[in-house]
């Protein structure tokens, strides 16, 4: 089998006495859409936060493309091609949708204090290119008509599309989505799924935390389940539906 794009080995994360992620090992294969499921509190988001550098693991290692990236900071990981969205969207609320997206490209010469004064020609050329690309990406996620709206004023579902647009500006290889369909109306969810599948066909790898089982069963393969911090299942979606351990985990732990 080919080298996995993301290799998680024995990752554990404690919060004081509480073990949120317990000795989890996962390989994410290039080109897949992996669904990460599990009851509330299973440690899915904590695992995401470890993978994206927002939290250091208590123990264990993470390799991205064969390189050890354990304890790398989020900004370094984004530069290496790892993009993530948030469970609760984090738009830059008082900035326009277009500005949100134009922020993301790396190595902008105008982002240095003296850039606007001593490299203004280069900055203008870069800005024009970034603006063009940003409008393309906004067009792709169907947000182009909202480009000049304040990002805090668009709907929750549109914010999720905006987060996707932002990370696409960095041209990531691996995209981690935290509950992309939660609280999003069906039309926007459909748009989002189309975009994910289209990006996946272009070679991008996805890991998606999602509670919507129809979503996971139809679009994710493989499916990985966490419960109480441990990996309790890894396999194809149809196997997940009949897996007794998994059903127990949901029925035993989740009260909704």
């Amino acid at each position, binding site marked *: 089998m080919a080298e996995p794009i993301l290799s998680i080995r024995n990752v554990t994360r404690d919060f004081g006495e509480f073990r949120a992620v317990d000795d989890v090992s996962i390989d994410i294969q290039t080109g897949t859409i992996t669904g990460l499921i599990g009851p509330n509190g299973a440690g899915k988001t904590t695992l995401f936060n470890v993978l994206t550098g927002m939290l250091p693991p208590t123990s264990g290692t993470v390799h991205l493309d064969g390189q050890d990236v354990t304890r790398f*900071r989020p*900004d370094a990981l984004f530069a290496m091609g790892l993009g993530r969205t948030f469970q609760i969207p*984090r738009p830059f609320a008082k900035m326009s949708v277009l500005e949100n997206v134009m922020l993301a490209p790396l190595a902008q010469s105008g982002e240095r204090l003296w850039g606007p004064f001593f490299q203004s020609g280069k*900055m203008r050329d870069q800005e024009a290119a970034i603006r063009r690309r940003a409008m393309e990406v906004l067009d792709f996620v169907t947000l182009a008509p909202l480009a000049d709206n304040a990002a805090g004023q668009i709907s929750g579902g549109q914010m999720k599309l905006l987060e996707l647009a932002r990370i696409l500006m960095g041209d990531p290889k691996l995209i981690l989505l935290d509950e992309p369909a939660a609280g999003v109306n069906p039309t926007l969810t459909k748009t989002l799924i189309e975009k994910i599948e289209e990006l996946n066909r272009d070679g991008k790898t996805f890991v998606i935390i999602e509670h919507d089982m129809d979503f996971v069963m139809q679009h994710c393969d493989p499916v990985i389940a966490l419960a109480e911090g441990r990996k309790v299942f890894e396999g194809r979606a149809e196997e997940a539906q009949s897996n007794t351990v998994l059903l127990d985990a949901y029925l035993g732990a989740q009260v909704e």
Partner: protein
Amino acid sequence: MIGVLSYLIFFATVASILSIAVLGLNLQWGNTGLFNGGVVAFFGAGAYGTLILGGIPQDGLIGGFQLPYLIALFGGMVIAGIVAWVVGLLTLRLRHDYLAIATFGVAVAFENLVRNAAILGGAQGIRGFERPLRDLFESALAYNAAFFVFVLTLLILTYLFLERLIASPFGRLLRAIREDETAAQSLGKSPSRVRLTAFIAGSVIMGLAGGLYATFYAFISPQDVLPILTFQIWAMLIVGGAGNNKGAVMGTFLIWAAWTASGWALSRFAPLEVQLYTGSIQFVLIGFVIVGMLMWRPQGLFPEKLVVSQSAAAKR
């Protein structure tokens, strides 16, 4: 008539100097969301720095290097920047109100330092140098007018510098850090580097204001770096509109006018026993202005404008 004119020049000079400091705070707070509660420390560092570098030797005092004026002024800015760099490294990991408390403490420490350090003039302060190019002008009025033009020029340059800066990708980065640091970091940005850069740049601008202030009065003392000045500068920014440079300048002129007018009115019309408390009453008034503004119009008189693209608007 001459009296009114000379007073107007005096007023406009001080208001312009303070506007520069408010613009520096706007870069930190309005654009980057850094709650600097110790503005006077950086203002004071610039003021003391300029007088020490450009001043004449005085017994028992540090400095008196008699550097050419513009170099002394620039040196004051550099000193303010160095103070900001050190303070920034120590405190910028703090968020919001904690940063405000820490920087407020720095400013109080600064005031105590200059008040107690004999080589910095102690409570008596430092006498400045003969105001630059004073000999070229016959009358004091003409000189003051010329000095006002000099200050105004620096205010305009600072304004244009900041307008260009915040319209650039750097400004976009500052706003993103202000809005959501975590999200910005997940998009490859380094919040700590950006926060430190903005903090130093804003403080250098405050240092410029301090240097001009010390030049104008040819004197600086611990009485000039009391916390009330920090609050006045904050009131100017809040009333004008955080995030909007035009608002910052307008707010400065408005608040400074209100401050001087209230002082004048109290000394003129208030009963004698009340006049004793003029300063305290003014403190209360400025507190009312800040709280009232935050309650009824938190965005200020000139709110920040959303940066929109002409091209995207045209496409619709």
